[in-house]
């Protein structure tokens, strides 16, 4: 309980939520890059710099700047709320359950790398959905689905998937319009990308 009260007090004192999260992000990236380089790659010397030298120094600097931004969040002249992102608990729980299960079942899933991959991806998307707006989740989802569907399903069907999913990410979904748009873009894609530019895409599944 005390911990929770402490965190609450800190949250109260944050004046600039944007600086707060940005500071955490920079510090996290900086420390991450620094620690990975220091623990995995040879440092070398100033004369003969090893692969760890430059990233470790940069990472350290970035972490310091992150700390400065974090500090500024408490004294900033600008005020922004701490709560910048959405928070949907059910999606977060689902993400953690699926992600955790995938991690724990690592040995059982070794035989099926695709299943493992798909589950991890699902967990990631649920995680994004837990914090971001609908558009963020659906647009990125549409993009990734397109990437994975292009080879097995062909250009036509993956374009349909991309357009419909991304249109769902907007505010104003109009059935008739989306059908027309999809048809136009499929035709355009086939004519320009495959016939015109000669990109090596198959049009239909299993070609």
């Amino acid at each position, binding site marked *: 309980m005390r911990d929770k009260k402490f965190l609450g007090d800190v949250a109260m004192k944050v004046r600039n939520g944007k600086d707060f999260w940005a500071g955490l992000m920079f510090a996290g990236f900086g420390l991450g890059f620094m620690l990975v380089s220091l623990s995995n790659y040879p440092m070398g010397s100033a004369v003969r710099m090893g692969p760890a030298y430059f990233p470790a120094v940069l990472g350290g600097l970035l972490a310091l700047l992150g700390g400065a931004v974090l500090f500024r969040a408490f004294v900033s002249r600008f005020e922004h709320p701490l709560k910048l992102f959405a928070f949907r608990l059910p999606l977060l729980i689902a993400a953690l359950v699926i992600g955790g299960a995938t991690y724990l079942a690592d040995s059982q899933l070794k035989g099926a790398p695709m299943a493992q991959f798909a589950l991890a991806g699902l967990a990631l998307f649920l995680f994004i959905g837990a914090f971001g707006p609908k558009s963020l989740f659906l647009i990125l989802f549409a993009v990734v689905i397109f990437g994975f569907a292009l080879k097995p399903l062909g250009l036509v069907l993956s374009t349909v998937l991309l357009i419909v999913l991304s249109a769902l990410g907007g505010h104003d979904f109009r059935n008739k319009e989306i059908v027309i748009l999809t048809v136009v873009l499929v035709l355009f894609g086939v004519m320009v990308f495959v016939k015109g530019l000669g*990109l090596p895409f198959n049009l239909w599944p299993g070609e």
Partner: protein
Amino acid sequence: MDFALIHNLSVGFGVALSLQNLMYCFVGVLLGTLIGVLPGIGPVATIAMLLPVTFNLSPISALIMLAGIYYGAQYGGSTTAILVNLPGESASVITCLDGYQMARQGRAGPALAIAAMGSFFAGCVATVVIALFAPPLAEVALKFGPAEYFSLMVLGLVGATVLAHGSLVKAIAMTLLGLLLGLIGTDVNSGIARFTFGLPELSDGIGFVIVAMGVFGFAEIITNLEQGASRDVFVNKVTGLMPTWKDLKDSSGAILRGTALGSMLGILPGGGALLSSFAAYTLEKKIGDTSKFGKGEIRGVAAPEAANNAGAQTSFIPLLTLGIPSNPVMALMIGAMMIQGIAPGPQVMTERPELFWGMIASMWIGNLMLVILNLPLIGIWVKLLTVPYRLLYPSILLFCCVGVYSLSNQPFDVMLTALFGLLGYVFVKLECEPAPLILGFILGPLMEENLRRAMLLSRGDATVFFTKPISGVLLGIAILLLLITLAPAVRKTREVAFQE
């Protein structure tokens, strides 16, 4: 007159006037105008999208087309700014102020004509500026060693952070993050794969198209959708293009000043079209009769339009002579050159003169095309604006996805782009300007390489960066820039300037 210059330019025009290159120049400026007109998609995303397509072109055609997109976008952006008060391109934000007012007073025609004429004049001058100043600068650059290059890149990055929007600390942090992301992949010296998490797909590093497309393209679509921006377009009628004699007299000085300012600011690291147009407008507001600004002053259209076009073009100078990009579009141009197997730098001018001068000549031709093309086509561009965003963004998305996928024909790249889209969204939310990140990303490996070489040559003596004269001066300027920006007085005006 300099005889070599005439010879060089004639070589350039010979290349640029070939039927094929004229065609690609035309495609480039047309596409550029198109995306300049359409809000929500800028030159960075478009060039990133088209990079894979340029694989199959000859290097000169590819560069001519991509350059055309950039300066074409400046023309297109002004059209919508004047007619419907929508800046199609960020550099034309400032043109809305007086251009739209002119349109509401029924003077859209003269505003558009002056914008086009100002842009054309600025484009011509900037072409000459490049032709005159690039060769001597490249000559200096040929004498650069690793220490000088390292300091130059530091200066470039500092310039980009100083000129970025918002907080300076965040901009520096974004630069560092970009440098670090650029280091992902196999280290050239030791052959060790760094930060790849064992993924073979990452061993060649992250393609910068992926970063640019994710951070600029996807993130922009997502935030546009989240804000639910609905656009109501009220188009003002265009009647009579010809400006009056008084318009011409009023704006000629503004065009001259805008061109001069834009040509200078374009060369600066971090400079380019956006900064130039803002600076030119601010300057005009301080000169002569200022009572009409914001109420349809023609000088308020002429100066920023001339400046943004001049700035867009002279920002090619650091790229062509030093191989250092001054803004994200130039970073993409470096990528385009590398795809074609050309190492950007001072040697391009001597080793591939047809490439260098052909591109410069094409800029002048492209500007001419834009003037001829733009005024009669205004009706079509305005029609395009009525296409709702809900139909536009799925189409943009399709282009982006196909572009990214065709980089290596693997779903992995598409997934990585989505990841950078997520990161880009977070950046927007946290008010972290992504432009310095992209510059850092491009320069990361180059900087490390030059740092290593310089330190090896100096036997680990870091003072070499200050004791070598050119390097010392460059670093001195960088430090001075940072100090000036941190000075309280400048900080205040900077905040005001970016809020306007």
